[in-house]
């Protein structure tokens, strides 16, 4: 493995880990953020509610 390879690996893995860490920090430290954050998994489509 070359020096450039080590650098790319460290920056690639480190960068992604740091970005995820920052996002987690923002979610935890921002009051009320959990009420407005959403993902595909927690969005219930209205048609499923209608069908039940």
């Amino acid at each position, binding site marked *: *493995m*070359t020096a*450039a*390879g*080590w650098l*790319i*690996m460290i920056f*690639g*893995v480190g*960068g*992604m*880990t740091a*970005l*995820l860490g*920052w*996002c*987690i920090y*923002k*979610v*935890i430290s*921002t*009051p*009320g*953020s*959990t*009420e*407005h*954050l*959403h*993902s*595909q*998994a*927690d*969005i*219930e*489509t*209205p*048609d*499923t*509610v*209608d*069908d*039940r």
Partner: protein
Amino acid sequence: MSQPLTGSKESWATRVGVILAVTGSAVGLGNFLRFPGMAAQYGGGVFMIPYVVAFLLLGLPIAFVEWSMGRYGGAHGYNSAPGVFRAVCGRRWASYLGMLGPLIPVVIYMYYVFVEAWCLGYAWNYVAPYLGAGTGLDLGDNPEKYNAFFERFVGMNEHGTAFSPGGGQALIFLGICFVLNFYLIYRGLQKGIEWFCKFAMPALVLCALIVLARVLTLGAPMPDKPEQNVVNGLGYMWNPAHQPENLAPGDKAVQALVYRSTFDAASGTDDADGLGSFTIENPQAVAWALDQTGWKRRQPGRKPPDTAPANEPPPVLAGRYANRESPILLTIDGDQARFRGLDLLDSGGRLTLDNAGDEDETVAKLLAMLPVDSAGVERDEKTLRAFSIRRPGAFREALGAVGWEHVGDGKGLRGRWQHEESRLVLEVDGSEAAVSIPTFLETLSNPEIWLAAAGQIFFSLSVGFGIIITYSSYMRRDDDVALSSLTAAAGNGFCEVALGGLIVIPATFVFLGVSAVANPPGTFGMGFVSLPSVFNQMGDLGPLFGFLFFFLLFLAAVTSSLSMLQPAIALFEEGLGIGRKASVAMLGFVTLMGSLFVVYFSKGLLALDTVDFWVGAVCIYIMATIQVIIYGWVLGIDRGMKELDRGAEIRLPRILGFIIKFVSPVYLLAVFAMWAVNKLPGRLKAVGQVEEGQPPVVALSLGLIVVVLIFFVLIITRANQRWDKQESSETGVSP
């Protein structure tokens, strides 16, 4: 409409739950299986350059765009991509720009569910031995056995294998996955998947971290192949280029050849002229490798051994085999070989067969394990059995692929190599060959690597799919899209780069060698052939971790595949005015036909890889381009940034507007134009290239995509009629 998370006081559990739900919702097969395949295909570390650039300049900005565009369309009463485009542009025709919105997730679902079935099947095969249901994946130390297991499992050796009697388990597991997906979506239970994200997602990451720790401590587990070690495996994944200037003369140059070809055994030294000389112990593998990896013989020399003349009907190859000792000794055209690496051999390398006394069966069984089209087996008057094979080229190729060992005169081929700028010239037994090894910049100048990197970013972030645009249309106007999409992207990136990239490629390199990394079994297949060897190295806990990893990956895939169905369901409901259950039933029929197509044309996973390239890379790329142009230039960047800021939990930098309006579209259009000029003609030419006696799978795969596209255009036309009526009744003006 989505339900807000309630509770005036946010507990830690709530916050952690939200983080896990957001990061976990988009994690799937793209992170752990597709990314390593793409990185290996495009040179490892050099792929990371366009990958990171695409993440920052395309993935994140277009994720913001798609979330806010969907929320905007939802506020105007539209849930499907065509409807949202119509709302944003204010034009009827704009809905047709969104036709890829339902097409992409539906077509991707057709093969994604097949890969999902592999995960479930592998999880089952780890528990099967404990339930008395066969040996499953308890295959011992030989990595080739896991390779052979995968090929049999997915039917890689012949089309229609899954449909033949006893043709493998893939069809059974596909059926289970299909029924499970459509049951959940039919009953409207997909929200229960949120539970998975909160509990099983951390388990998957934890399991992956343990597997990663084992991979990084593997060292060089193959005693006879010390060069296959973890550091070299990491080097394949992360080194920016395998270019000559990185290499000292001698064995490193030979390693460079090895990187580009498929033979494993080579030793090199320097001579006084600065030329390296080497001995390769497997001349058949060299000849095959030269042909397969783009080497062109510059001077007519002695024909490489066992190379069939091009464009001539191959002669019938006569052979004999003796079962006098194990392993089987095979003689082909006077050249002797013996088999190893097949799962017929025990840990001592001895052949054990229930019907070992029946030589015909032995040969038939050996041949059945190889991708040989036909073989006749007959008895001769002696104790040896003779056989003939109509396609000796394929047979030799197959022998090489399964690790046959040459036991000829022991001298091997002798040759020299010379370094000519960015070319390595190889001389083998007086015949000279040259291969161009692209430099770092040459590799980066290939537009296809930029297209593929952008496609991978879009695939793993679910951007350009039409999925986010549909789901975000159900959000409230003041729900956050900025921190949500950034957190989802960061979770994806972490799983992909820090876990997928560090586990699968090094593991494949260590156990199966560089040839398996350079020629992965399909875009998704690499993890399936290499990870079982890692689990095998984990002792008694190996089967447990093998089961957990593949089962959790299966669950992650279920969350993704369920979300792929919603965009088309939304369009059916809007366009045809039918209910959810009728929409699900119709979609079930369409996707089932497509999945069966992909499963049937399983030889070399050609249908899967073809559809994955044209839809999973090209169509997603086009859809993302359309979205960012509409957002930046039709909706307008001022309105667009206001939309993004609405309800945002973080303040996005203002430069984002500039990136969305100028940088992303120019980037996307420039790369696409270069790809279209340089690579598209070759891709289109490949459509017409069909191996003799084989079905035109590439053309049929493109036909499948076109048929589905026409289907959705018809639905959009019908939807426009309904939307026109709806608008005219609201405004009192005829459309």
